[in-house]
């Protein structure tokens, strides 16, 4: 966790032109660091070349999160289980934590990027 986080912190600091100490695992990437879509595009390039893992932009940045929630509700499925299946790099407690947070804007945090990279490293 620590090594992956430190490297992601450096990438975010470079791309967003912010100080590294403003970036913690719990920091919101859009809400707090002000990342825009082109920044996420550049971040995907950096993560891909820095960690040598395939990055699926839609997954890692949770871009379809709200669609998945709507789908799950439409099918009357359990939302948390539905999301766990589609975003397997996230832990159950993290998904539960996100649910009430969705109304306040993009919920993506630095620790989600760490989870994605670690999950990719383990699962190829």
């Amino acid at each position, binding site marked *: 966790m620590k090594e992956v986080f430190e490297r992601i912190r450096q990438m975010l600091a470079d791309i967003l032109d912010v100080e590294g100490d403003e970036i913690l695992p719990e920091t919101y990437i859009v809400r707090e660091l002000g990342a825009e879509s082109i920044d996420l595009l*550049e971040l995907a*390039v*950096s993560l891909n070349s820095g960690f040598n893992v395939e990055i699926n932009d839609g997954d890692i940045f949770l871009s379809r999160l709200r669609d998945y929630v709507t789908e799950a509700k439409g099918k009357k499925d359990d939302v948390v289980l539905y999301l766990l299946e589609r975003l397997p790099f996230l832990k159950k407690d993290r998904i539960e934590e996100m649910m009430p947070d969705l109304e306040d804007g993009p919920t993506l945090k630095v620790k989600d990027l760490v989870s994605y990279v670690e999950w990719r490293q383990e699962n190829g």
Partner: protein
Amino acid sequence: MSRRVAITAVGVCSSLGCSGEQIINSLRKGRTSFARPSFDDQVVSSPIPDFNIKAFTGPFKDRRYLSRGGQFCVASAVEAIRDSGIKKDLLSEAGLFMGTGPNLDIGGEFPEILDGKMDRKDLMALWMLRFLPNTAASAIAMYSGIHGENLTINTACAASLMAIGEAFRKIRDGYLDLAFAGGGDSRLSRGGILAYKKANAIYTGTGEPDTASRPFDSRRKGFVPGEGGAVFLLEEMTHAERRGTTIYAEICGFACSIDGYSMTAPEPTATWAEKAVRGAMDEAGINPSDIDIVSSHGTGTPLNDRAEAYLLHRVLGDNGPLVIALKSWIGHGAAACGALELAIALSCMHNNYWPEIRNLDDPCHINLNFVREKQDYFARTVLLENFGFGGQNAALVVRNTMHRRT
């Protein structure tokens, strides 16, 4: 009564300094930055050492998309906005006219290119922005909140003078009350040097770097590439007077033309360049005898200086106004040269100080009044000329709004 146009703010990044005061001090003390680049011991360039755009912008993530020339555009614009003191409401009405050059730093951007395969893992998603001409304007607008009429001009070495001229006309003709105008460029990279070396346009030789740039001297051997940027706030005169702001100078006339003669060389008789020069004087409503100083294009290439000297003699006659050549001090700023030379000329105007043409030992034309030694001189009217690859010609007339010192 037609509308008049004032210059009310200046931002500049040059090898002589990044303020009017630094520039005049460098001119007085003879401080230049000519040196050989690390990668080529045959050529000379005039870099701005230790330039860091962040010192101008503070944190600004979009700087990653700026070529070095684009960085000079943005840094100069930020300085001009700061100097103007104008706030968001006026900025949103302002226009933006930028002269920019191509990013020739191909080797720096693609260090491992082989067999034409450009892609690599760490290539930025939006790498193309460093090659698009209007990226600097886009970044300036994002940074500052400028939203008015705008234009990015890529007419080679006439680009930034044309940007200033077009902005002048937009204000004079009532489309805008305020416009930021100027440009920035840098072609000191390996790719830039390679381009002009192969074109046989730049100085090559083993002499002292300080003596390489020698406009109008019979031993001139080509231009010396420089870099930098300058941006001005142009403002409708009564608007500026109502704001009670400093008026640095008035822009009185502009014109441009195109040779239609050669892809690179100037038309040898300078017929069409003369059309631009006379056009700018007509627009300003002045005669050649009204001009006190000519800031020549003076690149130091054999062809340019010969054509320009003929032109100046035809227009100005024997013993005409003083002729300066600022490329002997800063090298050739490419697309930025017009804006850089205007910024330096304004400093000279305000200090009644005109620098000698460096290295002019044996003038190529005997009937022109080249400034051979520094002069303390009050100049009321200055003519600026820039000519570029592709036969681009531009001229601007600027008038001193400061009163003569007694």
